[in-house]
């Protein structure tokens, strides 16, 4: 029997694409789906997915848990668990459009949740940590239940299939987001499990990733020492946990996080001015187990922004362009031209050079 994601590590190549509006303008999902078409060759139909930010403005105060269940029992078990820690404000199936190319779907639900104050106090943690722990508990402990995403006013939509089909299936044309990220997957060996598709998410962090990292086990074993459990054995999962650890728990800035994950070479560090050199040396020392080697280009989405980053040798391609308040990022310029034929300032960031885009304060 083929082992599914989590039981075995499956290498995978891919395509990524993203668009963000600095003014917080909501964009339909139609374009981002179309942008994946010219990169069709980079996927093999075994996984596609999207993350949208700003999609639930009416429910923005609640954590939106997108869920996969294999059956009614796992759904029941999960709901039982959720009710212990949260008020379930709303629960509903995620609307889908039945199409021939997407089959074998699990039960797909979303829950808008408000954590119970008393339970947060009991756990002696802050609210975000409480929610993150709940999501990880479900993924590790409740068999058949899987949290696809769990941030506020955002959500991940993913499936086994080509990304353009996945977009149609989830009716992304009916959502409006100020930021979309997209992924087409090229796994090398998998029976196709919906949870294994990208983006991977924790709280409002989502990661889409192209490449296969060679430092995986060093990174996984490092991050697992701090309470994370890598159940999927995918690079994307480990990236997401690294981002959560460094950004939320260690409160590093995005730039500092990039200097950890894609640390400059020592020769480069030594050529920098003193203050920068000290900072880079410090970060590379303290978080040495989180240096990621091997090819990657990732797009990290979060509330109000995104960060794109290449590995330090730039073994994957990534192109960035702009038009008015919008910034576009993709594995290939062709994808950007679909999003915006007249995009300007087309450029390829250096290896390890983060591209950080934020929506204006108050606009999301």
């Amino acid at each position: 029997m083929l082992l599914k994601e989590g039981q075995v590590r499956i290498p995978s190549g891919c395509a990524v694409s993203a668009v963000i509006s600095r003014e917080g303008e909501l964009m339909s999902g139609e374009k981002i789906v179309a942008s994946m078409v010219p990169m069709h060759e980079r996927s093999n139909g075994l996984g596609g997915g999207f993350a949208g930010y700003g999609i639930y403005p009416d429910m923005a105060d609640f954590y939106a848990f997108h869920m996969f269940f294999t059956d009614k029992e796992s759904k029941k078990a999960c709901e039982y668990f959720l009710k212990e820690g949260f008020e379930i404000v709303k629960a509903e199936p995620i609307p889908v459009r039945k199409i021939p190319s997407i089959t074998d779907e699990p039960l797909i639900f979303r829950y808008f949740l408000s954590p119970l104050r008393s339970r947060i106090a009991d756990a002696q943690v802050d609210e975000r940590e409480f929610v993150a722990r709940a999501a990880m508990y479900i993924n590790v402990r409740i068999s058949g239940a899987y949290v696809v995403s769990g941030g506020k006013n955002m959500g991940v939509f993913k499936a086994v299939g080509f990304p353009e089909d996945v977009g149609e299936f989830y009716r992304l044309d009916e959502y409006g987001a100020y930021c979309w990220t997209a992924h087409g997957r090229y796994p090398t060996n998998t029976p196709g499990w919906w949870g294994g598709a990208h983006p991977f998410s924790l709280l409002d962090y989502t990661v889409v990733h192209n490449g296969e990292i060679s430092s995986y086990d060093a990174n996984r074993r490092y991050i697992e020492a701090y309470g994370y459990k890598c159940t999927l054995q995918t690079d994307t999962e480990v990236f997401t946990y690294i981002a959560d650890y460094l950004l939320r728990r260690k409160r590093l800035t995005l730039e500092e996080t990039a200097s950890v994950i894609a640390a400059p070479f020592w020769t480069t560090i030594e050529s920098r001015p003193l203050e920068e050199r000290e900072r880079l040396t410090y970060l590379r020392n303290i978080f040495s187990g989180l240096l990621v080697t091997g090819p990657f280009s990732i797009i990290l989405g979060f509330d109000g922004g995104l960060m794109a980053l290449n590995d330090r040798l730039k073994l994957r391609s990534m192109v960035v362009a702009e038009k008015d308040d919008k910034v576009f990022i993709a594995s290939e310029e062709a994808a950007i031209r679909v999003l915006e034929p007249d995009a300007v300032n087309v450029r390829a960031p250096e290896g390890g050079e983060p591209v950080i885009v934020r929506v204006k304060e108050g606009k999301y």
Partner: protein
Amino acid sequence: MQTDYIYPRYEVERRESRCTNCGLCVRECSYGVHYRASDGKTLLNDDAKCVNCQRCVATCPTHAIKIVKSNCDFRENYNWSGDAIKEIMKQAGSGGVLLSSMGNPQPFPVYWDKLLLNASQVTNPPIDPLREPMETRVFLGKKPSEISRDEHGRLICDLPPRLTLELPILFSAMSYGSISYNAHAALAAAATKLGTCYNTGEGGLHENFYGYGANTIVQVASGRFGVHKDYLEAGAAIEIKMGQGAKPGIGGHLPGSKIVGDVSRTRMIPEGSDAISPAPHHDIYSIEDLRQLVFSLKEATEYKKPVIVKIAAVHNIAAIASGIARSGADVIAIDGFRGGTGAAPTRIRDNVGIPVELALAAVDTRLRDEGIRNDVSLVVGGSIRNSTDVVKAIALGADACYIATAALIALGCHMCRNCQSGKCNWGIATQNPDLVRRLDPEEGARRLVNLLTAWKHEIMEIMGGMGINSIEALRGNRLMLRGIGLTEKELSVLGVAHAGE
């Protein structure tokens, strides 16, 4: 009584057709194997004295000499081997505790040889190590994950004291006394050239070597020989020696005959007095006492130097390491049961302790499970024989490796394993000035630099094949390892999958 006569283990074969009767073999052999007959001309040999150090073989200008293993055996069987019989005879004749040197020679599994390495194919590119940057620099010391910032939000970049090494290999402790001045000189110079460290061992630091301080680890052992304020200040790090892989639980004993001249001065004990290292540190009877010693050393050096605690790999190693990690130590050095020694009781050497591969895997896993892996660095030693042993150790979870036997071989040691005799023909494990002179420190340093430069290239090549371009991405990366011919239990302790999985 003739019952104890043991036929010599080795026989010297001299090919008369080549021998020019120059007599160099007589002068070269400190054991007195070669000698001239009473006629003052004929060359003879006393095979019983031969230890097979190969000095005469290597120096004979006409290559006329070879040493062969004698074939005069006891009537051995699987249970009663020749050694087993011979050892009984020795003890019956002498009443003595059997003494040996170098590491455990028994046929226990060598796990390095049962681990296979990975390489990238298609999904992830191998990296060319010769042309693309390939980083082998490591830092040994604490990596506290709590960060702090100043009032402007800038990171406060105060790193704890640490060792910076240009490659993940250090020379491990060998004291001045157990090895020669020239051997120490070669190690110190090579460590400096390579950007790594050598280790004084417990015999103090010769005044001439203070200049190499930035590449020196000064050791503090139970005998506290040569330990004083200047000595502690001189090194880049301080190592507390709690144990040694070759003889866990056993102290040391350098006979008074070796405590002469500079050795006496460096150890700060009178000439001719035995140098006895007690089995324990008598100020450490429990883990909280270790903390006391760690901090007294830190206090004495104003918290500027990392402190290493070296322990032998014994059964409960994971729990012990966990305790040490919580004692304030910056680095834990684990010495496996194959680690070398100048002299150890044979029974201890051959039966006490565990393989360093298993110890390392257990400690790394345990420290991670407890969330304290980054509170210490891990250095392992105990028969690291080549660059792949180093790569496998790092993939299992080590930060760096200690080598000593390999370094001695580079200096000329031929592994005759008679260090305890003090007659080392290669000028390494001896204090006899005529023998010491045979080891040219500059040539020795050059050979050590050659060895580790070659290993470094090999490590880079292997890392490149894995698609890894910095050593920290290899550390603990056990997916890069697969076991071959190992049991489920062995695999589970090592934390690796079997080949084909």
